């Protein structure tokens, strides 16, 4: 067992959803730290935070269907010295209670950890009211907020473990929980704010977060086998603070970048990456893929990922398209600085 690992065997974890793993991890943190409290707004079952309720009923609060109050109470508990883990669907955390998150939690720089589930289009058949393709954009614009989008269950466990000692408010965005796993084990180095190179490559870099990381890793294999392309894949699990170093290195070394995310292409991870590229002074071929500026359609999540081209097929198609584009082949960076 490596230090800081998720502390249970993969045979157990393999058939658990990211949210279930979050629930397990929260129980462990509750055992270790008595200041950990958990809150939800009538979504203890859906967000799997109920595991904590079973173990620590006196430190668990269900406020009913009242999200503004949920985050306000969380702020009060943090002011009283606790570390609140607050869970609801991403759409309610970022939009229904957006002002409470901003003003009560971020403005006061409180030690609240928000674990939002059912993000992006992962709640497929529930439709646009329950999809959340705006939360990365909203949350990363709040000063003091850290924004994390784990790629899968293992990474969710690592993020939840890491966030407890990361100062201030943290937003961890997970899906509904049926996304495929990309990390094969937990024996890798995870640091908030540092992206992970999943696949090395020199022709093009695919930067992804959330379930798109699996799609990108899967696509990289096909692109290597069928097209002979050397595709670098980066799991950019932390959107804020963003890992500038890994992005600028990719620009310099591969000169083509595409981003994939289960979020509106306006203001999400792709936009954050674009900001870093623009400020680096280095040009490159670039494309953002995600949910376009429209309300998402209803369907099974995997069908929606396909529809919005954020599945493996979509990554393959986009990478081929960007590889076919012309751009300045000049190797002299000096004129671009």
């Amino acid at each position, binding site marked *: 067992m490596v230090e800081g690992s998720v502390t249970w065997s993969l045979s157990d974890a393999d058939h658990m959803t990211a949210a279930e793993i979050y629930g397990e991890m929260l129980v462990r943190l509750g055992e270790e730290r008595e200041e950990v409290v958990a809150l939800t707004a009538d979504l203890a079952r859906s967000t799997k935070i109920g595991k904590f309720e079973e173990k620590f009923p006196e430190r668990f609060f269900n*406020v009913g269907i*009242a999200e503004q109050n949920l985050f*306000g109470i969380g*702020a*009060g*508990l943090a002011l*009283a010295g606790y570390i609140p883990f607050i869970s609801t669907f991403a759409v309610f955390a970022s939009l229904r209670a957006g002002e409470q998150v901003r003003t*009560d939690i971020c403005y006061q720089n409180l030690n609240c950890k928000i674990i939002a589930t059912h993000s992006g289009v992962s709640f497929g058949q529930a439709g646009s009211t329950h999809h959340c393709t705006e939360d990365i954009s909203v949350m990363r614009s709040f000063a003091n907020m850290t924004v994390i989008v784990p790629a899968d269950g293992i990474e969710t466990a690592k993020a939840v473990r890491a966030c407890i000692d990361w100062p201030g408010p943290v937003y961890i965005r997970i899906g509904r929980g049926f996304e495929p796993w990309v990390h094969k084990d937990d024996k890798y180095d995870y640091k908030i704010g540092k992206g992970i190179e999943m696949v090395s490559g020199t022709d093009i870099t695919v930067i992804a977060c959330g379930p798109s990381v699996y799609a990108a890793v899967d696509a990289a294999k096909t692109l290597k086998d069928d097209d002979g392309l050397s595709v670098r894949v980066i799991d950019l699990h932390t959107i804020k603070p963003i890992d500038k170093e890994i992005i600028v290195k990719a620009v310099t070394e591969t000169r083509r970048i595409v981003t994939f995310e289960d979020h509106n292409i306006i203001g999400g991870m792709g936009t954050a990456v674009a900001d870093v590229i623009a400020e680096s002074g280095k040009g490159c071929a670039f494309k953002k893929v995600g949910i376009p500026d429209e309300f998402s359609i209803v369907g099974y999540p995997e069908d929606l990922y396909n529809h919005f081209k954020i599945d493996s097929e979509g990554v393959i198609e986009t990478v081929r398209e960007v590889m076919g584009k012309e751009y300045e082949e000049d190797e002299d960076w000096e004129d671009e600085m």
Partner: protein
Amino acid sequence: MPLSDSELKKLEEKAYQLRKDVIQTVAWSGGGHAGGALSQLDLLVALYYKYMNVDPKNPEKEDRDRLVLSKGHGGVGYAPVLADKGYFEFDLLKTFNHTGSRFGMHLDKLKVPGVDASTGSLGHGLSIAVGLALGAKIGGKKWITYCIMGDGEQHEGSIWEAAMAAAHFKLGNLIGFVDRNRFCIDGKCEDIMNVEPLDKKWEAFGWKVVTINGHDYNEICGAIDEGLAYKDGPFLIIANTVKGKGVEFMEGVAAWHYGGLDGEKTKEALASIDKMYGK
């Protein structure tokens, strides 16, 4: 039990001085929420000079009583109280609202010692107060959480989410106030959006409620005593107050929700306060 003459005199003298400090701060600030600052003042004086366990030399003392000024725009009437208690130098108030100041019209906990929660956007404070009271309850802490709300603020739905939760969690360590001065920005609360019957609403949400004259120290302290003795759940004090209390030209005038004071108006306001206290 009624206050002793000396205790009553002490509180009223403090209120007299602080009403003048508030006017002075409004003048320095270039504009402030004078009406609501003066209506809430006697509640703050009773809390800070008779009830609250606080230590201005150690503002973050763990077992201190907490106050959440949910009507955050009352900051211009709260900061002079904190200055007088000794949380910071009184002269700092001269910077109120100025560029780069620690004091904006809504006080920031991270910048102003003595403030237990940053507030400003209405309808947020009671939820924070519920969290503080809940924290005390589960941690076996003895502190009392007080929360002063506005009456226009009662329009916010989140107030009622928090009211429901406070009763549900049986927070016998939470005392709320409604500074019932009857005005919001656009006019009389009842004309904008009727909040009556306010006492019945809070009772229906599971709170024990008393209604008092919010400028009468015997009534204010009697209600707080009753609230401290009541441990079965949250306790609400609806304090009937006068917007702009103490300054004749402000009293009951909606326009004095927010306003500025030039030299002459400041003198007039201070003279009016002298007159009210028979000075």
